[in-house]
């Protein structure tokens, strides 16, 4: 079992500090509150990576807010071998028909998952559907998706922390960082139980 101290040591570079993230979340919350003033908004978060961002963002918004959570299977997981298709592991718990919906993402890179989610959620007839992401990695984009609220545009590096994982670890870091290259194989081997 890896200790927290090791998790910090595994990070080769801190891209975004806790203070920078906190300030940006407050800024996004203020913008969203102004844009949706006088209306109620439903924040839809995609598990698991966006959980810390969702928790902080909803408290930075000062208009009426509903929240809901979704989880979809990721390529390369066990679901891949069984079906070969993305699956909704956890669906919305309430209707979003005629609601103002804001998808809250931790990071957008290829856009493949978000593209799937947008198509799925549009089928539920929301009044509006917009996107807020803490991190945007446009260099990696395959599907061009208009993003309404972006926290940080980051370089083309694999990042962990503030909800983002590698091998299900590092989500609890309060900052966003880049792992040392030698960590990848070690963490993956532990996650696979080797």
């Amino acid at each position, binding site marked *: 079992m890896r200790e927290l101290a090791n998790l910090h040591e595994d990070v080769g570079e801190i891209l975004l500090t806790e203070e920078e993230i906190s300030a940006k979340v407050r800024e996004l919350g203020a913008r969203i509150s102004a844009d949706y003033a006088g209306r109620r908004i439903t924040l839809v978060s995609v598990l698991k990576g966006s959980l810390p961002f969702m928790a902080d963002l909803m408290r930075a918004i000062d208009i009426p807010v509903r929240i809901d959570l979704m989880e979809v299977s990721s390529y390369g997981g066990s679901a891949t*071998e069984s079906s070969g298709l993305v699956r909704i592991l956890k669906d919305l718990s309430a209707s979003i028909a005629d609601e103002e919906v804001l998808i809250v993402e931790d990071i957008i890179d290829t856009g493949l998952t978000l593209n799937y989610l947008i198509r799925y959620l549009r089928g539920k007839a929301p009044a509006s559907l917009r996107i807020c992401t803490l991190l945007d990695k446009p260099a*990696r984009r395959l599907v061009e998706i208009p993003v309404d609220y972006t926290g940080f545009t980051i370089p083309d590096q694999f990042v962990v922390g503030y909800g983002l994982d590698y091998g299900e670890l590092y989500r609890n870091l309060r900052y966003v960082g880049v792992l040392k290259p030698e960590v990848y194989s070690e963490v*993956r081997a532990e996650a696979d139980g080797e």
Partner: protein
Amino acid sequence: MSEPAHVANTPFAHASEAEMSRILDFYAVRWEYEPDTFPILWNLDGDVVESFSPDFYLPDLDLYLEMTTLRQRLVRKKNRKLRRLRELYPDLNVKLFYARDFRALMLKYGKLALFEGLSGSSGQVASPYGVPELATDGPLDLDLPGTADPPVASPSRRRRRAAKADPATKGPAILS
């Protein structure tokens, strides 16, 4: 579980392309493999001497995707061909997917070992469901002058290829 027929029956030139097709399938993004060939160089007689067949066309996104995962020499060649393609066909939406992009995808999906297994190889057309099959030796980028004629996969593909790469249609006389 066996490989879906439309993947198994597609003559991918490289395992990275097969893996990309599975990723696109997973996220319900429709794809066609090398459906179109675009002439990019003609001789003085106006005959096509070089063409470019992007690996994938994603009809829902109107996007061509070219993957290049191995040797830098081939990357430079593809970059040159891509520049030429964009000059001649400015309305095409083409994205070049480099080795680092593929590596990042594999890292994200916990399949780094697959990338590392491919790196430096001549490109095994690997199936996640079975034993990898060795690809033929030689360059991976098969878009060589006079040989850009990938296998035909569908009638729609044949129609587009005929429209865009009809040898009877003479292009501008351009020498390399």
